[in-house]
């Protein structure tokens, strides 16, 4: 069994052990297995990375086994390890491990501790399957699997219908995306005749290009990506997904799973390079999502909701990058985002932990002094996401803005302006969050305030590590690392001059955002209140997330139920089909009644019938002569 397979199987083993034996063998065992497996997986991944390097970056590939073979069509479970995979795998295992460790502290009191770690390991297993898979089939297996894991983890506290419903919503919305993904896969298969991603890319790179519209395939696959990576119109599940435990939000809904869509697009770049229409769709959707989510984030008071929307918004950034052909940059942002967003979520977790479950930033404030480590790390991460140089976020976001402007694959001024504005909003609401949570006077209840305490080392340690990473992560330039695999797009003629403008601009944006937040939320909340009073209407719309959920409910949910119930069930089944059949039955019954009334018991009648019979037969006989 090769190393790649091992990477995948380790978390699975963790899942099985914890799932089957966890409850019997106690917390210690669970912790050991739960954290140990990912850690080992991380180590093995590093080993693979070194091998990759040692092998002159020639992709590693190994076949686990043949899933099935029909005629000449072979579906095998094979793994593939190249630069892109390396980055993703490292993020997944690395961050994953950290979050596992963090969870040991965070979930310590929870009575279904074992189940939690089992699910978490299950998630890692599928995520790695997704990342390492060589063929779309394996990728899809992971793709669905992570969906399942997130379903289970979001609904982890299923006693509460809200949370269970959130899990279901996540799964179903994802399924809608997956349907698109499947369609894309099938079209691809019947066109190219294989699901092997390297082969597919090669096929599209080479000549003749397969006889299928790359844009069609691209868009279909992107629908899948939309589902997984929470883009318009399928983003609605992510905010609700915050119902899960905070580490889960950090791992699944910030660092890893939600970026799978970006990974898919980057992985399938071969197709998208031939699908300008699809690419521009991606860019447009990304930009729109980014903007919309950012605006919504302005008006959210739940600390996790803010982060959730910012995640959606950041994913938008990534897709813009992918849309303009800068796949490396997109992955770069995935990479940086993994660090600072994980850090933010975990920090939020630590805050919630300290606030004994309170999530409303309106009821916080002045926590900086009480939980310093959390504060510092959170601040660093905030700065990073806001794009304050030289933190990680700055580099990736700057690159995105640059290519949004300059890429010869659909970069444009409009795009860059939208993104810049979004970046500004980002900086603003993130600092707002920071301020409301950590500065100002405490607004929480007294007894809560007493209990406020710094989290255990298992959590703070992780926070510090992530903070460091989100601080320095940016210096390792992923795009150039990936260059040999996915080239960056060319620069439109005459754009080079503007590079420094963009850099300066993004710095300025961060500063402005910071300043504005400080201005509005620094002192007492009066200024903010004034603004809010100014724009009540807008504020309501924003705080209600543009009423999208309600819209979907009215446009999709209810009609579907109505058709099923009123048309199919009542008209179709009961009236048309069963109605007809019962009608026939009763006709037969009535006929039976009529006929048996012929039998009056009168011999005369019987004899007459005989006479009639004879005459009729005779007539019949010589009529048909």
């Amino acid at each position, binding site marked *: 069994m090769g190393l790649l397979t091992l990477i995948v199987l380790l978390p699975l083993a963790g899942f099985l052990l914890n799932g089957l034996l966890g409850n019997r063998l106690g917390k210690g065992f669970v912790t050991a297995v739960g954290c140990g497996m990912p850690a080992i997986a991380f180590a093995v991944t590093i080993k693979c990375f070194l091998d990759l390097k040692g092998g002159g970056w020639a992709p590693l590939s190994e076949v686990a086994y043949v899933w099935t073979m029909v005629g000449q069509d072979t579906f095998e479970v094979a793994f593939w390890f190249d630069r892109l995979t390396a980055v993703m795998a490292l993020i997944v295992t690395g961050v994953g491990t950290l979050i596992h460790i963090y969870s040991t502290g965070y979930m310590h009191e929870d009575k279904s501790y074992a189940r939690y770690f089992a699910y978490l390991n299950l998630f890692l297993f599928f995520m790695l399957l997704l990342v390492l898979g060589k063929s779309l089939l394996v990728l899809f297996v992971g793709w669905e699997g992570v969906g399942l894991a997130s379903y289970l983890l979001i609904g982890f506290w299923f006693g509460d219908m809200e949370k269970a419903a959130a899990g279901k919503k996540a799964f179903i919305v994802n399924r809608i995306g997956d349907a698109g993904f499947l369609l894309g896969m099938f079209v691809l298969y019947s066109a190219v005749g294989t699901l092997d991603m390297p082969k597919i890319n090669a096929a599209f790179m080479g000549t003749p290009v397969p006889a299928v519209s790359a844009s069609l395939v691209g868009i279909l696959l992107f629908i899948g990506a939309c589902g997984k990576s929470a883009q318009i119109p399928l983003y609605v599940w992510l905010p609700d997904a915050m119902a899960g435990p905070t580490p889960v939000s950090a791992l699944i809904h910030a660092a890893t799973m939600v970026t799978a869509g970006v990974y898919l697009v980057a992985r399938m770049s071969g197709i998208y390079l031939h699908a300008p229409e699809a690419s521009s769709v991606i860019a447009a959707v990304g930009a729109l999502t980014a903007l919309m989510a950012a605006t919504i984030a302005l008006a959210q008071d739940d600390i996790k909701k803010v982060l959730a929307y910012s995640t959606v918004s950041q994913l938008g950034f990534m897709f813009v990058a992918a849309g303009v052909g800068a796949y490396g940059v997109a992955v770069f942002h995935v990479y940086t985002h993994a660090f600072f967003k994980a850090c933010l979520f975990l920090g939020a977790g630590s805050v919630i932990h300290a606030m004994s479950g309170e999530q409303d930033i309106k009821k916080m404030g002045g926590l900086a002094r009480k939980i310093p480590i959390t504060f510092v790390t959170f601040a660093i991460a905030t700065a990073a996401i806001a794009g304050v140089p030289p933190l990680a976020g700055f580099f990736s976001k700057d690159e995105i803005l640059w290519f949004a402007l300059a890429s010869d694959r659909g970069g444009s001024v409009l795009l860059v302006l939208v993104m810049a504005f979004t970046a500004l909003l980002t900086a603003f609401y993130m600092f707002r969050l920071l301020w409301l949570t950590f500065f100002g006077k405490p607004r929480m209840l007294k007894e809560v305030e007493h209990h406020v305490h710094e989290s255990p080392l298992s959590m703070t340690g992780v926070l510090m590590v992530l903070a460091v990473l989100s601080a320095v992560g940016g210096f390792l330039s992923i795009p150039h690392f990936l260059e040999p695999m996915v080239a960056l797009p060319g620069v439109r003629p005459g754009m080079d001059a503007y590079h420094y403008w963009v850099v300066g601009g993004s710095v300025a944006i961060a500063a402005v955002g910071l300043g504005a937040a400080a201005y509005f939320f620094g002192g007492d909340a009066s200024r903010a209140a004034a603004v809010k009073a100014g724009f009540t209407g807008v504020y309501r719309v924003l705080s209600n997330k543009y009423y999208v959920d309600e819209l979907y409910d009215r446009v999709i949910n209810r009609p579907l139920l109505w058709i099923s119930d009123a048309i199919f069930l009542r008209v179709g089944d009961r009236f048309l089909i069963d109605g007809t059949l019962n009608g026939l039955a009763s006709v037969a019954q009535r006929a039976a009644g009529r006929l048996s009334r012929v039998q009056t018991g*009168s011999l*005369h*009648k019987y004899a*007459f019938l005989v*006479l*009639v019979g*004879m*005459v009729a037969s*005779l*007539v019949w006989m*010589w009529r048909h002569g």
Partner: protein
Amino acid sequence: MIREFLAHLDTLLIWAFAGCAFVSASLMLVLRRPMRVAIALVSCMVFLGGVYGLLGLHFIAAFQVLIYVGAVMVFMVYAIMLLDPRDESSGAHKYSKLFWAGIIGFALLAEALAVGYWNDLPHAPRGAAGEPFDILRFSEAFLSEYWLHFELTSVLLVAAVVAALAVIRENRRHDRG
């Protein structure tokens, strides 16, 4: 002239007998009292016997008179005498509801049956007629070729007797309980 008349006498008689038979047969449907009906039937049978005789089938004529009139009808008359007094309805309504239907049926059936005769009735050589049917020839054929049926009729009569006895027995049981 007389001779010609005598030459055609048998034909005339047949026509006459047939007519009388038909009339008495139709009377059976009209007369109310069973006894009268019985008498009508008897006369019809007798006329038919006459027809047989004129056709030269003397023994059939004989049997017609012996078995039918002699046995069957006498039995029937007894039955009538036995049962008619007990009939409390005493033929209050002579006809069933199906009277007209029956009449129309009669017309149709008679017509339907008769149709065959108009078209395809074979006209066999007259010469042969009546010739094999002196009683001697017949009984000889009967006992040589058809004695099987002779035997069988005896079986049938046995069965009939047993059956009749059984019914009588039922009658008796009916009396008891």
